[in-house]
């Protein structure tokens, strides 16, 4: 409960940072817009620019703009997107949802891969399998996600003659949500999931392996073995449970990484998630749209950290009773 209350000033601080960040570039949307019009051969006079500024509230001092924005956000009104000429809420809903689905499923994928491999690498230390997984893990850490995406795209095009980008098949792109669309999403989701998850999985495998190795030589393991417990039961019942802690506590930093990584990968693979629109909004100084994305992404990671703390307390009595 106290943690929950602590989150509110935290998110408030995040919102100020975010707003300061998007106001940082010199100039504003109107200026960009005017430049674009001028490039297209139209003339824009100062009076028009001033009236546009007034309409969007861009002539106000920055703290008043912030206040207008944040007081709207609290009641679910994220403002108006200048570029798209519609309320931000309409734009971000599905995209943030898909970003969340992608991040969450990648997290599950990361665990599903890292847990068995980490255990295997620790139990069969210095076996051929351990070396292979260690090597793959290092490569996974070294290759940036977008590069992996590019390579996969190349393989997709040259070997399978298929475009691996996007999250939906063409007929489903604009379709309303239905069961068939969900199935279609699941079919496409695995590619960004694997790309995004490899780096995180690689580091989790290293952590899991190191932790389990610490536990495997503890006297209590020998005791349990001496009592005649089968090797599998023994492993699952004691050392793995303890070695699992970092899995949960890493949600805190894995999630920000996933959200970060998903931005770039979405741009490369052209996914309908938050990434590409965020980039556009930042470049075009569409301040409320960019602000809404940044704020929600940061909030997502803060919530992730909170969830990991709560899970950790549930999992480990030593932390609960501290």
């Amino acid at each position: 409960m106290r943690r929950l209350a602590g989150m509110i000033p935290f998110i408030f601080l995040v919102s100020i940072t975010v707003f300061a960040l998007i106001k940082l570039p010199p100039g504003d949307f109107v200026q960009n817009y005017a430049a674009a019009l001028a490039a297209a051969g139209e003339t824009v006079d100062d009076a028009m620019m001033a009236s546009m500024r007034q309409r969007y509230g861009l002539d106000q001092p920055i703290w008043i703009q912030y206040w207008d924005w944040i007081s709207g956000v609290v009641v679910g009104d994220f403002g108006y997107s200048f570029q798209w000429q519609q309320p931000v809420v309409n734009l971000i809903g599905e995209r943030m949802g898909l970003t969340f689905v992608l991040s969450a499923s990648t997290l599950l994928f990361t665990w599903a891969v890292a847990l068995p491999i980490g255990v295997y690498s620790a139990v069969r230390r210095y076996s051929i399998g351990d070396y292979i997984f260690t090597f793959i893990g290092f490569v996974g850490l070294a290759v940036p996600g977008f590069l992996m995406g590019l390579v996969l795209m190349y393989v997709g095009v040259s070997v399978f003659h298929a475009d691996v980008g996007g999250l939906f098949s063409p007929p489903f792109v604009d379709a309303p949500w239905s069961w068939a669309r969900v199935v279609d999403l699941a079919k496409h989701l695995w590619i960004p999931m694997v790309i995004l998850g490899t780096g995180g999985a690689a580091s989790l495998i290293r952590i899991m392996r190191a932790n389990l190795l610490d536990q495997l030589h503890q006297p209590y393991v020998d005791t349990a073995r001496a009592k005649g417990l089968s090797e599998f039961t023994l492993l699952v019942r004691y050392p793995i449970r303890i070695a699992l802690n970092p899995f949960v506590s890493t949600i805190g930093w894995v999630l920000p990484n996933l959200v970060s990584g998903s931005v770039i990968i979405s741009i490369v693979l052209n996914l309908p998630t938050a990434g590409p629109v965020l980039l556009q909004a930042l470049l075009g100084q569409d301040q409320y749209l960019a602000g809404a994305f940044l704020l929600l992404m940061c909030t997502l990671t803060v919530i992730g950290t909170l969830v990991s703390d709560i899970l950790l307390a549930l999992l480990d009595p030593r932390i609960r009773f501290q």
Partner: protein
Amino acid sequence: MSATLTHGGLETASQAKLTWLRFRRHKLAMFGLVVMVLLYTIALFAEFIAPFNPDRSNARLVFHPPQAIHFIDDSDGGWALRPYVNAFRLARDPVTLEPRFVPDASRRIYLHWFVRGDGYDMWTFIPGNLHLFGPENPRDMVFLLGADRQGRDVLSRIIHGARASLSIGLVGVTVSLMLGITFGGLSGYYGGRIDWFVQRVIEFIISLPTIPIWLALAAALPKDWPPMAIYFTITVIISLIGWTELARVVRGRFLQLRSDSFVTSAWLDGCSQKRIIFRHMLPSLTSHIIASVTLAIPMMILAETSLSFLGLGLQPPAISWGALLKEAQNVQSIASAPWLLLPGAAVAITVLALNFLGDGLRDAADPHAH
């Protein structure tokens, strides 16, 4: 007594020497060290090592495919160790009429060591035209790693890109290090309220998703700035987020050291705070700091690559691996010229080598590890 002798003076060896001895045993780390020394040497002497001027373009050689080096030359009947590549000529696909490069077995371009070629100003002030290797005739082009969409040599561009990409890691880490040591040191040494505050700030920064924040900061840079200014600002942006990890390491060690007896005795001897921190505490942190720094550099390099790839980092005509990868952003160019992905291989090799090196250093720096 004899044990001392057989150990070859191990008991009297300095901490640095012991660390080096432990490090030597770590084969992967030694390998990483060799690779990194090599890469930084290449970056330092890029103008000399690259066979061509990275900006030398040729509209007729657009997307020229890579040429393989043949070492054994049998053109004059016998055979000789004389490296050459087969020249390519432009032909049209009989069906689609697409222009396409086909190997021309009749013409061989011989490669030589230390040839005179494109002129350059090494480090902007030493003029020269000597290249480590290159074609016999300076007017020929040889594309060991293919050409890009303006007919420029990808190999030369990767070599020149190493300079920005590798140095951004070093500069960025220096900035991070200064921030990290200052704040981590303050936090760990004084504890209490300062510690609480610095820790909250660090937690705050860590919980922010880095790439959206970088994007926002990098988008704030005016596009008309000179490349050098952009380069330094990007470095600062990257290190603003990167210092937290170092600060944590420093703080943890400081907290641990603060209660160590040698610090207490220094304090009892009446050493000033400055002396305690710089003379007694920092030296015992050095090895850990070096290891953390080595592990932080690859993160910086990846960050720069990502930003430049998205078009928010270094802008052409500046060359960095990320900026080069930007050329390979869409499916069409990857499908027609997959060699444009090769700068990514350079990134991966660098990051891998630095990770091995950092791992080895960390193990070697820990006096309790066996």
